[in-house]
């Protein structure tokens, strides 16, 4: 009998630094599985953000660049324009993409740059220790919003998938989650579709993934899944927001 389950070739054989219950590991695996299934490992270049996933470059087994905070879409643009034959993806968190990197992601999407963005939205800054993000929910506590996000002062959470889907340039924009097995399967399909669009040279793709951060939410991994289900999903509606067809 052959091996029924193994680590994707596009993941390196190493321990990650992610906290217990963090969903980065799941999304890393999904991306790696897609890279394997499409047979593109040898021509893929990933771009790591600043944030928890900066060390993604240690966990993926393909060429990688590490960007400055928020600038991954500009770096991806640089690579993809000079080497359109390469498969390029950025892997960014919500502080990186929705705050400091807002300009870069909007313009890359609007130019229709043919790369893929995996956007991890867990409604908080992880690496720097739980500060408020543009995606933090109203009333949600953060180290820079100790009594909870006050929307009078900081506005409402930004829904990136909704916002990017308003651009007229054709693209694939979807929001998925990894809180339950069914959602994980759907996320995998979305990531695969996003990479397929790139392989076909079709369009820019962004897969937003609703994720958890038990450490900075101050919850157990199980309670985090429940909290995200009850608090994030009603506001961050799942589904495809835009397809290139």
């Amino acid at each position, binding site marked *: 009998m052959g091996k029924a389950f193994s680590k994707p070739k596009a993941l390196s054989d190493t321990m990650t630094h992610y906290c217990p219950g963090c969903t980065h590991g799941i999304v890393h695996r999904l991306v790696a599985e897609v890279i394997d299934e499409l047979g593109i490992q040898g021509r893929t270049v990933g771009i*790591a953000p600043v944030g928890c996933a900066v060390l993604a470059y240690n966990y993926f087994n393909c060429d990688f660049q590490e960007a400055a905070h928020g600038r991954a879409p500009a770096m991806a643009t640089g690579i993809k324009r000079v*080497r359109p034959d390469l498969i390029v993806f950025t892997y960014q968190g919500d502080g990186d993409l929705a705050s400091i990197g807002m300009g870069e992601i909007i313009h890359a999407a609007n130019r229709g740059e043919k790369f893929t963005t995996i956007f991890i939205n867990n409604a908080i800054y992880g690496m720097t220790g739980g500060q408020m993000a543009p995606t933090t929910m109203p009333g949600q506590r953060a180290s820079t919003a100790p009594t909870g996000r006050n929307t009078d002062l900081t506005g409402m959470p930004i829904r990136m998938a909704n916002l990017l889907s308003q651009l007229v340039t054709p693209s694939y924009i979807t929001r998925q989650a990894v809180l339950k097995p069914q959602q994980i399967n759907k996320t995998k399909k979305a990531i695969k579709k996003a990479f397929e669009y790139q392989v076909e040279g079709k369009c820019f793709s962004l897969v937003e993934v609703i994720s958890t951060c038990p450490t900075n939410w101050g919850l157990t991994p199980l309670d985090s899944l429940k909290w995200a289900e009850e608090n994030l999903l009603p506001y961050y509606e799942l589904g495809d927001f835009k397809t290139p067809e």
Partner: protein
Amino acid sequence: MAKVLMKGNEAIAEAAIRAGCINYFAYPITPQSEVAEYLVKRLPEEGGVFLQGESEVAVGYMIFGAAAAGERVMTTSSSPGISLMSESISYIAAANCPAVFVNIMRGGPGLGGILPSQGDYFQATKGGGHGDYHLLVLAPDGVQEAVEMTMQAFTLAEKYRGPVMILGDGLIGQMMEPVEFPEDLATKPSNKDDWATNGMDTRKSKKRNLVKSLFLDPTELNNNNLALKAKYIQMKKEEIQFEAYNTDVDYKVLITSYGTMSRVSRTAIDLLKQEGIEVAMLRPKTLFPFPEQAVFDAATKESCKAVISIEMSMGQMVEDVERCVKGQRPVEFYGECGGDIPSPEKIIEIIKAMI
């Protein structure tokens, strides 16, 4: 090859193509927008990439991404734009990627003005971005040298795997001069297998490459900085360029000037010579590495009584000149900026007052 009459900005653009750079990312800013306007027409003819980015910040990272993918790449900007790109220049230096930045300086600080200035000497030679890094900085004195240095810049960027800057000023960008494109400066592509992120399949080893500037382990970070320092020491040994003007005679005063300012200083020297007053000039062509020994030697010639740095700034290169002269001669300064260029007459008046 025949000489052609070209505007500096267009000549720099053409020189990049002649050096084998067909990838250009930029954001418009006066007084260098002609580079983009030239390349948007020329690059498609060469099968190259032209992209106007959404900001200088983003452009810096487009350059970084393309350079890290192993392709020859250039951007051009002017002072406020270079400030915005300085973040990426720090990352590019730390990550050891070859890239060429052209700064056609305008007056600052702040939004400043659009007329020529040399106010970015500190920014170009002492950092600009954060951390321990240097750009290799080439300072042309006219359109011909701008062409030659642009072509050399790609060779140097690849030799040292780091960012190289052409530091010109608005005069160089805007003036037209006859120029000849040297063919022997066209650079050959270097082997990038051991570092470029252009896909594992391109390498025999099939090993993956990683371009990064994060080193959480203090020893690793120190080692990366030591490796950068080793490059800068090698540059100081191998890349210093300067011009010595009228240094064969017994001169009383040594002028230090660079870029277009040196041409005004040269005129002043020629006019003073007619009056029987001998003045020499040491013109650094590389601002980093700085011609330290040459400045010291020229300043401490027995006949030389004093040194004056003449710049289109409020006194920037003069600090390096003072450092190199090591207190052996008095070092004075004269400069104007914001578009008021020191005139030969004013320089003559100041020098006469010195002797």
